[in-house]
C-alpha cells in the first residue's frame, strides 16, 4: 500500500470524486492558481480546469451561500475555508440556510454540499485564528460534522461526504497535513457514524476526535509504560452522526472514561458524550467521567503557553492517574 500524507489523502478524495461526477467542483480562496493556502488542492486546477476549480475573492458569506444555492440546483460543491475560523463570516449561510432549507421545504430540496478546511489551534496564530467549531455546527440538526484524524480516515470519509445528499462539514488540522499513513490504492468509503478503536485496552477509555486522538495515543503509551494501565482509545471520527454504540461498549468494558477535546469545554462535544454515557451506562461507571479540554480562555498567542492551553499528553496522563 502506498504511504500518503493527510494532505494527499484529502486531495485524492476530491480528485477521485471529481473524476466520478462532473457536477462536483471546488471553490475557495487560493484553491486554484496558488494550489491551496495549505496545498491541499494542489494540481486540481491543472487537472480539472477553471470551470471546476475556482478561486474566490475573500467573500466567505458570498461563496458559501453561492455553494448552497448551487447545491439546491443539484450541483455538488466542495467549499474550502482557508480555516474554519473564517467560516464565522459565513455562519448565517451554513447555520440558517444549509441546515434548515431541507426541513423548511418539507423535504423537497436537498443540499449536497461539503464545507471543508482546517480548524485547529496549536500553531501560534492567536485567538481569532484558532477556533475549533465542531460543537457549534454539530448543534444544528441538518448539518453533519466529521473530524478525521488520520490520512486513511480523511480520504474515506471525504469521499462519503461528497456523495452524501446532506451538507457535510469536514474539519481538518494544519498540524496533521504532513502525517503519513498507508492507504489502499483501491477505492474505499468510510460511512459516517462509525467510531474507530485506534487502540484496544481494558482499564480505561479515552474518547477523542481529530488531533486529540493522536495525543491520546501518546498518553496511552506513557500510561502503559509507567503505570501499567491498558488504555482503549476511541476515535469518534464523526461527530454528528455519533457512534453511541462503540462509545458505550468501550465504557462497559473499562468502566472509566476520559474525554479529550481541543475545544473549549463549555457545551463542547465532550459534554454531549458525557451525558450519553451517564444516561446509558451509568451502572457501569467506576469513576466520574473526566474531561481534558483546552484551558477555558481565548486562545493565547504565546507559543509555549498555547502548548499548555491545549490538551497535551501530560495533562491527559494526570487526569488518568486521578481516576485509576
Amino acid at each position: 500500500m502506498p504511504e500518503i500524507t493527510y494532505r494527499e489523502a484529502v486531495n485524492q478524495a476530491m480528485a477521485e470524486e471529481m473524476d466520478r461526477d462532473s457536477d462536483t467542483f471546488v471553490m475557495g480562496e487560493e484553491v486554484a492558481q496558488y494550489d491551496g493556502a495549505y496545498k491541499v488542492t494542489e494540481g486540481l486546477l491543472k487537472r480539472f480546469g477553471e470551470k471546476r476549480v475556482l478561486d474566490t475573492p475573500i467573500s466567505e458569506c458570498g461563496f458559501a451561500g453561492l455553494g448552497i444555492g448551487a447545491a439546491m440546483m443539484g450541483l455538488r460543491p466542495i467549499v474550502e475555508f482557508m480555516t474554519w475560523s473564517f467560516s464565522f463570516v459565513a455562519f448565517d449561510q451554513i447555520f440558517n440556510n444549509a441546515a434548515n432549507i431541507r426541513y423548511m421545504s418539507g423535504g423537497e430540496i436537498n443540499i449536497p454540499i461539503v464545507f471543508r478546511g482546517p480548524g485547529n489551534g496549536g500553531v501560534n496564530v492567536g485567538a481569532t485564528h484558532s477556533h475549533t467549531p465542531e460543537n457549534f455546527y454539530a448543534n444544528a440538526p441538518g448539518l453533519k460534522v466529521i473530524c478525521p484524524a488520520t490520512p486513511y480516515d480523511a480520504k474515506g470519509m471525504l469521499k462519503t461526504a461528497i456523495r452524501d445528499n446532506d451538507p457535510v462539514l469536514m474539519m481538518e488540522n494544519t498540524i496533521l497535513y504532513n502525517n503519513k499513513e498507508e492507504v489502499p490504492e483501491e477505492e474505499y468509503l468510510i460511512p459516517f457514524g462509525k467510531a474507530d478503536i485506534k487502540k484496544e485496552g481494558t482499564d480505561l477509555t479515552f474518547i477523542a476526535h481529530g488531533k486529540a486522538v493522536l495525543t491520546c495515543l501518546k498518553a496511552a503509551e506513557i500510561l502503559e509504560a509507567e503505570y501499567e494501565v491498558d488504555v482503549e482509545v476511541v476515535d469518534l471520527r464523526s461527530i454528528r452522526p455519533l457512534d453511541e454504540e462503540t462509545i458505550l461498549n468501550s465504557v462497559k468494558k473499562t468502566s472509566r472514561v476520559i474525554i479529550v477535546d481541543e475545544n473549549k469545554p463549555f457545551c463542547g462535544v465532550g459534554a454531549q458524550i458525557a451525558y450519553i454515557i451517564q444516561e446509558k451506562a451509568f451502572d457501569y461507571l467506576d469513576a466520574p467521567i473526566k474531561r481534558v479540554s483546552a484551558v477555558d480562555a481565548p486562545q493565547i498567542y504565546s507559543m509555549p503557553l498555547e502548548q499548555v492551553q491545549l490538551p497535551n499528553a501530560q495533562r491527559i496522563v494526570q487526569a488518568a492517574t486521578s481516576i485509576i
Partner: protein
Amino acid sequence: MSQTEAKEDKESHVDAFSENPINKNLTAEEKINFYRQMMEVRCFEERAVHSYQQGKIGGFCHTYNGQEAVAIGTISMMQSDDHIITAYRDHAHGLAVGMNMNECMAELYGKVTGCSKGKGGSMHFFAPDKNYWGGHAIVGGQIPLGAGIAFALKYKGTKGVCLCYMGDGAVNQGAFHEALNLAALWKLPVVFIIENNRYSMGTSEARSSSVSPLARRALAYDMGYDTGIGNSVYEVRVKTEQAMEKARSKNVPTLLEFDTYRYRGHSMSDPDKTYRTKDEIADYKNNQDPIMLFGSILIDEGIASEESLIDIKKESRKKAEASAKFADESPFPEIEDITKDVYWEEDNPEHKTSEGTMFFK
C-alpha cells in the same frame, strides 16, 4: 548622474503635493522624522523576519516593507482626537502612533513584556492610549469597528476622525459594504483607507474585484472617494488631509485608495512563487521605493545628505537589534495568565456582581 539629469530630477520632485502648505510648512526636522519613521519600520520588519527565521517568532507574521509611506504619511496627519484601526499588517501603524519597538518585538516573541502581554501576537497589536484600536486578523472585521469608533467620536461631540485601514482584498467582504453604507447614511467622521498592494495573498486585484479603481465602490453609497500614489509621503499627506477635513468639518466619510506594493510574501509562510515575477518586485524596489524616493527628495531640498540618511539607517537598525535583544531576554507569560484578561469582572473582583461559574474545565 549628469548635472542636467540631476536638475530635471530635482524639478520633478516639486509638484502640487510638495507645494501644498501642509507639506511646504513642515520644518526640516519634521521631514527628517518621517524618513526616520519609515526607516525604523523597515528595520523593525527586517529584524522580525530574521527572528522568525531563527524560530523565535512563530505563527503568521505579515511585514510592511514597501508600504511605509502609507502608514507614516496618513498617521502624520492625526491630531490628538483622531483614532486609527487596521488589519493584521499592523506593525507599522503601531510604530507610527508611537508604540516603541521593544514592546512590539516582544509581542512577536510572545513575551509578557509585549504590547498585549504575549496574548495577541503579530496580527493583534493594540495601543488604545495612543488611539490605536488594533490589529485585526479576520479580513474586513475591523471595518465596521472603524465606523463604530467614528460613531462614538461624533456621539461624544469630539472633533476627532477615525482612519480605518484595509487591504485590497478586504473590500470583498460583506462587512466592508455594510460599514460603508452605515457611515454614509449616518454621516460618520471616518476615512476608509485601502492600502492597495495589488495582491490579496496570491490573488491579484483583477482576479478578485469587479470594479477598478476599488475606491469607486464608494459611489454605491454616494460617498466621496479619491485615489493616490502610496509611495509618496507628500501625496499621501495631502489626500489624507483633504478627506479628514471633510470628516472633521462636515461629518462626511471618504473612501481613499493608495497604490502601494509589498516586497515580501503575504506572510512569512508564503513562498511567493506563483503569482508575480521577481522582476516586478525588483522594479518596484529599485524605482518606486517610498523610503528611497523620500530620501532623494530630502537631499534635493537640501535638508539631508547621503551620509545623514545612512546614519539614520544605522541608528534604526541598532534600535531594531536592541528590541530583539529585549524581546529575547524577556520572560514568557505564566500559565495563570492564560485565564486573565478574559472578563473585566474577573480581573476586578472588588467590583464583581455576577455569581456562578465563569470558567469551566
